[in-house]
């Protein structure tokens, strides 16, 4: 009868050979077993019987042992694979949203199951949906909620979510009832209350569906937050409404009096606000908790999921709105936990969140499709279905336009007509409605199946049809799109200026407005809340502009590395510095070869032209050597640190030691040392040849230059520090710091790290100074190190090697070849370091004097 039944006797080995196609077929096969107990039972007992007889079984096939988890895992993988198949072709997903395709895929799967079983064995049950699939999606939405935008528009969102939803529910229920009375749907056993119940369950715009569609059409942020915020909050509302009406239905029409209705309204507010409050409590609890997870960093990311889920369950337990609870849990904790947790944990949370949310979204859509293929479900009533569709569509439009008309009287920036159209058209219904519909009690509502099938049709209609047409509509109406702008510092600064300016104007004009309130809230938040919920160490560097600064630095660093990898390795970094070193050290001795080298350089870095113009005074080699000896010890650490950053990163990443509680890259010192020494030896060789006056070949290869340079800066190295990537930045920083008795370059090394650690604000502080001092006091090896750090670590934004004295600027200017920062950064670095190298004095032990401040501010300004 089925695939699986035939297959099973042939043994499990076969199963593993099945490909994707068979896997899909295999599932319906499994279903049989799952659904058909008479069939599966004998099979299983047969197995056991067999194993009893033959004594010790070498292998035994125990399907029932693993059945349900196995099925779950299989379903998940099928859903994921379907997404993979769908996403493989971008031409299709550009036109048809993924959610619609997933539903269609579900149809196919459902058809296969139906074809195999003649009965639909897999359905999206409300329990699975509400307890296992929905929470993570909502938590994800809350956690990634753009808070400022959300709260700025909260008033409007609430109006849409509460009044709009109530309006949708009531108008639909009453109109359907009216049509019923008018005889449009023939003979149905549905009363007014049931209609209202139906209306309430189908009234809500669904966050899952909305997100899925709107993420692909990039509408402007206000419009997005309105639709999305509404869909999130009205889920809470709709669940509440549903419960109230459900209670009314069970109470029966006769017993409903004014008192009950008032109670219903009160319960509505209690449920909604209680849920939100509970969520916030959990969120703040979570923030508190992450304050002290320093020692268990490896699992701290888990807290947010567990506590978020608990807030959901607790709200459910107290019959408060679980959805609102988990939304506000995410909203209230995001700021603090992002600050409190280690950056890696934050990344983990973000990705895990996305994996969970996206995964369950996929599963939901697939199952929405599968659920459709079930003959027992479908009850068709043309009048009911079509009227529902019609009313939903029309009332949504009416509701949006009417509410917006009112809101525009109050909104500072009114919503435009086009936005309103998109809002009304974006009223997608989704799985929440379906879940609620399935939860209907058949005993109380005779026409449950009709309602469920109508709900499904509405879902398909809105998700597929409206989803598909949304994009063309948005394009056609020329809806303001989200500006896909890069994160820029200046905008952030401007943004901040703005906030303060608006507050100031409100203060001056003596009005209490949004800005005034927000300012007061910010003050309060900063003064009390962040004191309680945030680690003291991170409080300091969470200024927004500063964060952007930091983010940009990271980005630059990353693109820098990318650039390096594009060229094959980070070789060019070393090369670049090699050039400087080489030049300054051998400038005189080998002056006759310089042109060649320079020419070569010019080839591989675009910077030469500017460099060539700057005469670089050379420094005697002897001097170096001496000073090198003197500071060998301290410096070792620095240079080694660099080495590790540059050289061994790739290799080391492959060697993980297993530990459940630590996820560290192997930092075996000996090993590193060994590699290091080996490299050094070879470097030394090449250096010797250079020093001997053996003229390098006419065309000096990159490697040779690098070698020489490397030698210069790295000869003296032992290893102490952990590798850059291996993780503990705190450590790294302190090392760098202590290692260098001379502050400047020591500091600059772990610069990027600093910001994160929180120790770091001193860093940028010194940076400009470095620059000004540069020309005089930095010993060459330091210069080299610094140069290195500048190369790898954050580009110049971070390095801030630009005290913008005119001369510096001028030097940077030519390098600005493109607006793409990477290039110019790398190039920019060279002259500066060079400058620094100009006269280097050996004394490592005298820290450079503080820079004359006037230096920095001089010039053209």
């Amino acid at each position, binding site marked *: 009868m089925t695939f699986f039944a035939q297959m099973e006797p042939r043994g499990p080995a076969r199963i593993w050979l099945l490909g994707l196609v068979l896997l899909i077929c295999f599932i319906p096969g499994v279903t049989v077993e799952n659904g058909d107990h008479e069939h599966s039972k004998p099979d299983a007992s047969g197995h056991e019987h067999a194993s009893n007889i033959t004594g010790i079984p070498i292998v035994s096939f125990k399907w029932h042992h693993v059945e349900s988890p196995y099925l779950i895992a299989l379903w998940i993988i099928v859903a994921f694979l379907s997404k993979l198949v769908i996403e493989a072709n971008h031409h299709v997903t550009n036109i048809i949203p993924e959610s619609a395709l997933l539903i269609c895929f579900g149809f196919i799967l459902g058809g296969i199951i139906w074809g195999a079983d003649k009965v639909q064995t897999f359905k999206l049950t409300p329990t699975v949906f509400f307890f296992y699939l929905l929470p993570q999606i909502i938590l994800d939405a809350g956690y990634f909620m753009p808070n400022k935008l959300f709260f700025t528009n909260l008033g409007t969102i609430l109006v849409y979510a509460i009044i709009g939803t109530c309006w949708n529910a009531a108008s639909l229920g009453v109109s359907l009832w009216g049509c019923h009375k008018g005889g449009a749907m023939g003979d149905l056993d549905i009363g007014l209350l049931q209609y209202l119940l139906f209306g309430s369950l189908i009234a809500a715009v669904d966050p899952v569906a909305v997100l899925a569609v709107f993420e692909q059409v990039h509408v402007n942020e206000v419009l997005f937050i309105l639709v999305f915020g509404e869909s999130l909050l009205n889920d809470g509302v709709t669940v509440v409404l549903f419960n109230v009406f459900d209670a009314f239905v069970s109470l029966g029409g006769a017993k409903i009096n004014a008192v009950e209705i008032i109670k219903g309204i009160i319960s509505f507010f209690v449920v909604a606000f209680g849920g939100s409050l509970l969520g916030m409590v959990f969120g703040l609890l979570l923030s508190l908790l992450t304050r002290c997870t320093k020692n268990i960093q490896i699992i701290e990311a888990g807290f947010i999921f567990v506590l978020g889920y608990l807030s959901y369950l607790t709200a459910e337990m107290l019959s408060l709105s679980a959805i609102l609870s988990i939304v506000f849990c995410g909203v209230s904790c995001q700021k603090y936990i992002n600050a409190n947790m280690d950056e890696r944990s934050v990344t983990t949370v973000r990705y895990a969140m996305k994996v969970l949310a996206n995964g369950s979204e996929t599963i939901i859509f697939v199952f929405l499709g599968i659920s459709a293929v079930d003959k027992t479900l479908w009850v068709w009533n043309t009048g009911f279905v079509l009227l529902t569709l019609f009313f939903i569509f029309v009332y949504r439009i009416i509701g949006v336009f009417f509410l917006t008309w009112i809101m525009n009287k109050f909104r500072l920036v009114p919503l435009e007509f086009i936005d309103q159209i998109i809002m009304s058209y974006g009223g997608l219904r989704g799985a929440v409605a379906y879940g609620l519909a399935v939860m209907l009690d058949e005993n109380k509502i005779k026409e449950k199946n009709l309602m469920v099938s109508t709900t499904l049709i509405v879902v398909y209609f809105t998700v597929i049809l409206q989803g598909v047409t949304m994009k063309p509509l948005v394009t056609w109406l020329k809806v303001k799109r989200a500006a896909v702008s890069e994160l820029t510092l200046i905008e952030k600064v401007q943004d901040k200026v703005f906030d303060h300016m608006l507050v*100031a104007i409100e203060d001056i004009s003596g009005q209490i407005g949004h800005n005034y309130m927000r300012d007061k809230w910010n003050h309060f938040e900063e003064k009390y809340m962040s004191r309680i919920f945030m680690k003291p160490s991170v409080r300091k560097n969470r200024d927004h502009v*500063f964060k952007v600064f930091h983010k940009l630095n990271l980005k630059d660093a990353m693109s820098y590395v990318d650039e390096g990898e594009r060229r094959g390795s980070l070789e060019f970094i070393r090369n670049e510095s090699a050039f400087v070193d080489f030049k300054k050290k051998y400038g005189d001795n080998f002056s006759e070869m310089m042109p060649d080298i320079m020419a070569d350089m010019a080839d591989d870095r675009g910077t030469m032209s500017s460099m060539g113009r700057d005469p670089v005074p050379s420094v005697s080699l002897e001097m170096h050597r001496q000073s090198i000896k003197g500071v060998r010890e301290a410096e070792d650490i620095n240079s080694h640190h660099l080495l590790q950053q540059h050289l061994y990163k790739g290799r080391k990443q492959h060697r993980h030691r297993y530990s459940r509680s630590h996820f560290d890259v192997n930092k075996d010192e000996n090993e590193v040392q060994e590699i290091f020494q080996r490299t050094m030896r070879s470097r030394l060789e090449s250096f010797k040849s250079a020093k001997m006056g053996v003229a390098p070949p006419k065309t000096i290869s990159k490697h040779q230059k690098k070698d020489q340079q490397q030698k210069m800066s790295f000869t003296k190295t032992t290893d102490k520090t952990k590798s850059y990537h291996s993780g503990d930045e705190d450590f790294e920083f302190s090392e760098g710091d202590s290692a260098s008795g001379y502050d400047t370059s020591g500091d600059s090394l772990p610069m990027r790290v600093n910001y994160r650690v929180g120790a770091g604000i001193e860093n940028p502080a010194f940076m400009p100074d470095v620059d000004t001092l540069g020309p005089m006091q930095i010993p060459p090896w330091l210069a080299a190190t610094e140069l290195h750090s500048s190369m790898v670590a954050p580009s110049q934004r971070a390095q*801030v090697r630009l005290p913008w004295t005119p001369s510096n600027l001028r030097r940077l200017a030519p390098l600005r070849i493109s607006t793409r920062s990477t290039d110019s950064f790398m190039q920019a670095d060279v002259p500066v370091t060079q400058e620094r190298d100009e006269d280097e004095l050996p004394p490592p032990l005298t820290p450079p004097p503080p820079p004359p401040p006037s230096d920095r501010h001089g010039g053209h300004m």
Partner: protein
Amino acid sequence: MGIWQSLSGPPEYRQLAEKTGFTCEQIGVLHKRFKQLSHNEDTLRREHFNAIHDLGCNPIRVQIIEAFFDRRNLIPPDEGRMEEIHLEDFVVVMSHFKPPPLSMTDEQRDSVRTEKLKFLFNMHDMDNDGTITLEEYRHVVEELLSRSAHISKEAADSIADAAMLEVAAISMGHMEPDEFYEGITFEHFLKLLNSFEIEAKMNVRFLNMNASTVCY
């Protein structure tokens, strides 16, 4: 809102309303506030502004206050600074923060945008030379960051520097070796904040009724 509203009220209000686009009620409210700030004098001076309590903790207080005394923000624009301002100047400066009308054509939007950005630009350009130099910009950033006491001046400086570098990169593109970036001109400023929806952001709700008693 209406023409009929502008027709009511004292004649000087009407004139102002025409000039600034406020309604007479709003001007009335602003006038009241003006008198309250100036202690019933005819002119406002800087110390009046400095006395506003809520303004005390605003990091860019100085710039804001200066903007009120800046003749460039008047209609028509002029040069230089004033020592004291009259109601008219006060209202005119305030009018830069008026919310845009409900529906705008593209040209209108552009002009609103330019006007608002001009105000912002003038606020940064303290020395009135047509460019925001690094010094000036750094000054703003420093003050912005000064509120979180943990960030040192140098950090703020470096952020300003980085921002300036960004500006140079965006607005100049390729620069010749002997060029250097002098500062942000207004054209660059427009370009920089291209994606910044200033017409939607730089707005303050001006009430029709008097709320000034509530707020000091």
